[in-house]
């Protein structure tokens, strides 16, 4: 990475140095250089943060990969517009991933706002599947993404939002204008479907 004026670092990106290991003072220098419209600093900004942002967004939007590029671009444009507010109190990587998190949640909100939620009167009942056995599977890492990809979009979205984004049912309900009970019912069905697909996949191997 180049040295600029005060220098945000003296190492080139090609040396595979990750900015988050350099420190927030350096992050602030990079942010200031980008705000000065330094074209090379802007390239470093993209080079340093496109991989973590892309990785995060891609996992959260799976298997709708066609939307990933647009959402990553939105993250970077929002970051540019908000960069003047960055004060260096946290690493720039964390800051930009925070923007990505907001964008992903906007996406989740749009998906879940238009779905038919399970009715309270449904006579649905969860099977008692052996959860300990499932998580103990040595192949669990390979299965998670594959199984998530098999689920209907509303099930996948609510699981990702609840467990990977760590949002409570109440928070999700507030975001989409539903009751917590309705979200819980959707979650229960999503969990059940996930386990069924998981077991089906394991049985097929």
């Amino acid at each position, binding site marked *: 990475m180049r040295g600029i004026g005060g220098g945000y670092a003296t190492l080139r990106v090609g040396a595979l140095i990750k900015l988050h290991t350099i420190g927030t003072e350096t992050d602030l220098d990079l942010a200031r250089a980008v705000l000065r*419209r330094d074209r*090379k600093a802007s390239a470093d900004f993209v080079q340093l943060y*496109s991989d973590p942002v*892309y990785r995060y967004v891609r996992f959260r939007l799976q298997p709708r990969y066609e939307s990933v590029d647009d959402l990553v671009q939105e993250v970077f*444009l929002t970051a*540019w*517009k908000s960069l003047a507010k960055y004060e260096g109190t946290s690493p720039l990587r964390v800051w930009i991933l925070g923007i990505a998190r907001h964008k992903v949640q906007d996406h989740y909100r749009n998906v879940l706002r238009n779905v038919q939620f399970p009715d309270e009167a449904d006579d649905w009942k969860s099977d008692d599947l052996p959860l300990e056995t499932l*998580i103990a599977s040595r192949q669990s890492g390979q299965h*998670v993404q594959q199984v998530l990809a098999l689920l209907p979009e509303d099930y996948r979205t609510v699981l990702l939002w609840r467990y990977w984004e760590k949002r409570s049912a109440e928070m999700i309900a507030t975001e989409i204008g539903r009751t917590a009970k309705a979200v819980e019912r959707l979650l229960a069905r999503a*969990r059940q479907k996930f386990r069924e697909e998981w077991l089906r996949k394991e049985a097929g191997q």
Partner: protein
Amino acid sequence: MSDELWFEQLAAAHEADEVLAPSCLKSRLYSRLIVEQEKTGPLLSLKETQGLCVYEKLIEILPVEQAMVQSFQYCKVCHSRVAGENIENAPIYWANCPYCEFQNR
């Protein structure tokens, strides 16, 4: 083990794979970012910018001081940008060219 706990543990144990952003996406992100920056003012002059590529260096040493010349984004008319935005692992190897540095090789 409860349903909730199992899914919480599963999510904690399985995050995104170590995939890299495609170089075409990085190239398009950079081009778009520069376009957005130009909407709010001129780019930093080449004379104040470090790490210029060979083309930018040629412009920078010209006896031309006009701000417009020094602030123009020359990548817009460069073949490296076109290749970088459209070809994954594009065969471009200029020193100090962002589009070369975006290649995952």
